[in-house]
């Protein structure tokens, strides 16, 4: 068992330090790169918080949709394969809902400020 603080706590502390202490002191292209770096750390924090639940829900949906078992990556390969072959499409019950839910879960980690995502959050 690894000790505390948790990875999330550590990354948050580093990101806050960069954001609050270093950002005001940096100018030019490095200021842009620093923003990218902080965004990267924030993304990791969101993934650590959200990935467990969204991955298990995604796996449940995929198993139901495909009627097979397997690891998440393999299930996604199987779904991709079936879409490519035309065996499932947007008329297939549950496919559109699954793709929407999976994509919304990705955006929640990758780019929660993306305008299309914020618009879709307000819909059901």
């Amino acid at each position, binding site marked *: 068992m690894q000790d505390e603080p948790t990875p999330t706590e550590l990354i948050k502390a580093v990101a806050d330090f960069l954001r609050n202490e270093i950002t005001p002191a940096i100018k030019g292209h490095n200021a842009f790169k620093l923003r990218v770096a902080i965004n990267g750390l924030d993304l990791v924090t969101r993934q650590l918080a959200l990935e467990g639940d969204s991955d298990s829900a995604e796996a449940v949906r995929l198993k139901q949709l495909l009627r097979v078992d397997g690891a998440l990556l393999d299930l996604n390969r199987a779904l991709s394969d079936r879409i490519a072959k035309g065996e499932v499409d947007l008329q297939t019950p549950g496919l559109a809902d699954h793709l929407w839910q999976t*994509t919304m879960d990705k955006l929640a980690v*990758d780019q929660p400020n993306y*305008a299309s995502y914020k618009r879709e959050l307000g819909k059901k």
Partner: protein
Amino acid sequence: MIEAELGRCVAAWYSGATGVTGAAKLSGGASQETWTFDIVHPGGNVGAILRRAPPGYGASPGRAAGLDAEAVLMQLAHDAGLPSPRVMHVLGPGDGLGTGFIMQRIEGETIARKILRDEEFARARPILARQLGGVIAGIHGLPPTKLPKLREMTATKEIADLEREYRSFGWPRPVFELALRWLRERDPGPSKEVTLVHGDFRHGNLIIGPDGVRAVLDWELAHFGDPMEDLGWICVNSWRFGEIDKPVGGFGSREDLFAGYEAAGRKVDADRVMFWEVMGTLRWGIMCCGMMQRFRKGPDHSMERAMIGRRSSETEIDLLRLLAPRGR
């Protein structure tokens, strides 16, 4: 160091020039660089841009038109009265600067967030879509006999290229599969009319001033193909920078873009434009994945490229909004 070479080069064709000053690299990958500098002249300094492949980097990558072709296209656009820099000099072996060209520097803004938000551009924003429609029509109408040799693309070839690249990543993306399938099923076939296509007509490659568009840049992806491709590409949501209800670059409507295009005497096929918008959305998504691959396999380990890899999901939600829209 580059100032000495540029100074010698400029003195040979710019009468009265005594050298160059203020040379600074604006952007550059391994094989292509853009420099800004001023030509020193008793009558006043003149702003110029060097676009070049440094010595030893002659060949351009697969899809690129090549710098010689870019120079010809830019000059043709300029001669046709389109907003384009004048090409001042095409580099020769004697210049010792590699291959490429020197063009007039045009002042203005290329950064989308500033163009979309700064007060300075408030008067330009409402007129831009129509203006750009006219510019795109002008590009498509450039005299075919004068055009350089360029690759010819069709929707079918583009779908195959995108699919090959996506499969090479070995990472499953069901939404991309859906888009590929959608595109294959609706492939409109070869365009009745094949014209010059700019290939990358969007924010970043357009210099905008308070008065509107001032220059079209970066003809690297120019090719022959379906003219509707350029109209679809500029509507891709990735170039709206948050202004998602203004499909043309976040500043204008499709209606205005199309009106400007048709006012210049050309016809719009709105269904084909939409087809190319879906293609363009997928294309940008696959390009984001490509950045991630180069981050992982390339030598420079760039953090920016890694983070762009995490933007491919943006194109997935945009593809779903186009192909499987949900109710309010």
